């Protein structure tokens, strides 16, 4: 196994009840890089993302065969601690979903759940996370206000800050800009570029330009199959598979 890989996925098959959503997926997610998962709606890219931190567990009738190895360990093994996994693999959702509490409490939520109570330590964590999420300057005077009072773009950066506050190794992003306007989207994209120094990022996106702009590697999915996975510039300049070429040139999707 490649030592640079954070996740190693081997022959992953996933069923929702009778319906198979992923077919024999095998890929490696490289460390400290941005990996984009692209493909048309229903191609399984979000499903794959959610199987990395086992959020699919929450869906009734979801059944998984094969392996997802995080830092060499099979996360679907019976003895694996899923809570531990999720503290190391953070997630940002499609729709900004801050908790109905203050900005401070939103960011401090994860650390508090880990049992950190010291106010000074929490304040430090919150400040650092908000700084890293490029939100601190905008909200430093109103940390006690509700997270829901922020704009959509700010809410999404708050959610990123909330994930960063856990000091994870990986951040999974499920179409994080699809609900945002172009300016807010640009800010998040800049942020992702900054974050990749410290974190491995896996991002699902609908937007091929976005994948081309921000990712180092791109995986193209179609109907539950991984069609092609390579360096982003190769995927977009000289795709090996005809279906990939058809998709990125806009012939379907």
């Amino acid at each position, binding site marked *: 196994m490649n030592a640079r890989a954070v996740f190693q996925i081997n022959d992953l098959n996933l069923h929702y009840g009778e319906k198979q959503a992923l077919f024999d997926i095998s890929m490696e997610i490289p460390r400290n890089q941005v990996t984009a998962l692209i493909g048309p709606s229903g191609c399984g890219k979000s499903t794959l993302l959610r199987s990395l931190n086992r959020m699919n567990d929450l869906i009734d009738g979801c059944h998984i065969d094969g392996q997802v190895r995080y830092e060499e360990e099979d996360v679907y093994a019976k003895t694996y601690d899923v809570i531990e996994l*999720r503290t190391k693999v953070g997630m940002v959702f499609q*729709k900004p*979903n801050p908790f109905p*509490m203050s900005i401070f409490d939103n960011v401090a939520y994860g650390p508090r*759940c880990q049992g950190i109570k010291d106010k000074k330590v929490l304040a430090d964590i919150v400040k650092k996370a908000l700084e890293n999420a490029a939100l601190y300057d905008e909200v430093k005077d109103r940390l006690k206000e509700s997270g829901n009072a922020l704009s959509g773009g700010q809410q999404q950066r708050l959610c990123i800050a*909330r994930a960063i506050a856990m000091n994870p190794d990986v951040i999974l992003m499920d179409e994080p800009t699809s609900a945002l306007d172009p300016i807010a989207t640009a800010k998040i994209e800049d942020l992702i570029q900054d974050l990749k120094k410290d974190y491995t990022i896996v991002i699902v996106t609908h937007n091929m330009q976005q994948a081309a702009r921000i990712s180092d590697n791109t995986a193209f999915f179609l109907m539950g199959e991984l069609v092609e996975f390579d360096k982003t510039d190769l995927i977009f300049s000289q795709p090996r598979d005809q279906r990939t070429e058809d998709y990125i040139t806009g012939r379907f999707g």
Partner: protein
Amino acid sequence: MNHAKRHRKDFMIRIGIGIVSSIGLFVLIAIFAFVFQKGSSLLSWQLLTGDYYSTTYDSYYDGTLPSAGFERPSSLDDSVYYSSVWGIGLQDDLDAEGKPYILIVYVDPNSPLTSLPDKNTEGETVQIASGQTLGKVIFSNRTIVLTSNGAQSAIQLFDGADGILDLLTTTRGKGIRGSIITTLYLIGLTLVIALPIGVFSAVYLHEYAPKNSKLAEALRRLVEMLTGVPSIIFGLLGAAVFIPFTSTITAADGGNLFSGALTLAVIVLPVIISSTEESLKVIPDEYRQASLALGATKTQTTFRVVLKAAIPGILSAVLLSVGRIIGESAALIYAVGTAIKDHIILTERSTSLAVHIWSIMAGETPNFELASAISIIILIVVFVLNLIVKLVARRLSRA
């Protein structure tokens, strides 16, 4: 021709619907109007804070009076007649049945009237105080105060006398303080019992029970059924189960506030479970997912995010329950009793406001005025509670 007929028919039906709905409206308004018209004259601070039972004191005074007398305090209203010899202020007033009486509105703190020997019990003293009603007074110069002659004539007689052979005063009764306190106790005790059970049941049903769980479904059916059971049946349960139960673990002997609270807890439990579950249903699943994705456990997610967000819904469940507790009467007749009390002891019988109405109406001389006054208080409290529930619900739907 057919056209005109249809128009006529339509017109007639509209008139009919109008008449029928105004009958309904009229009946509702009439109830309110009746209660307010009957009871509003009794509404006063004294009604809320006073004793229900009046006591009559019988005393006398054979000492000497200070020659300086007692100065009339400037705070007294002009309608008050004041005797500077005795230091007492009297006022004419009308009771609930419209009969005149003389009300003591002021007694000088240094007046001998503040401590008179009790004629009924040797060695005891009687304190004449504002709020008491002046009854018959026989002075040592053989003049006699008649209440029907009013306060002015009474004061003249007071001023002309230097000793009292017989003084009858009565504390004003018909206050409902005791029943208010009982009601407050019942609200507090019932919520302490029912709220945790109800909220945790709802949390189990909505957050923990597996989907299509038979147990959860059975629990839901039971809750639905319990909301339709007449409360007198819960009262029987209280009498058959909770009174013996509380009698064994407390000093109680018969109906008491604990058995009442347990009975009421059973009654409000379905309300709390179903409205808490409703409020959990509207908590977006995104909150739960975000929390779990941050490495929080299921319990942390439930308590720190979901229940916190559901607080407005739980609050409205509490308010609905309080309304139900205040309005409940049938179940409490068994479980707490029908004895109106002034001094409330948790392990003894007493009446809530609603049962107080029942008690005074079931007696030999029903007191419509007092019953209506209590009804007004209950109506106002329930009305305010409903308003708050609406406001909370609106805030909840906006969030």
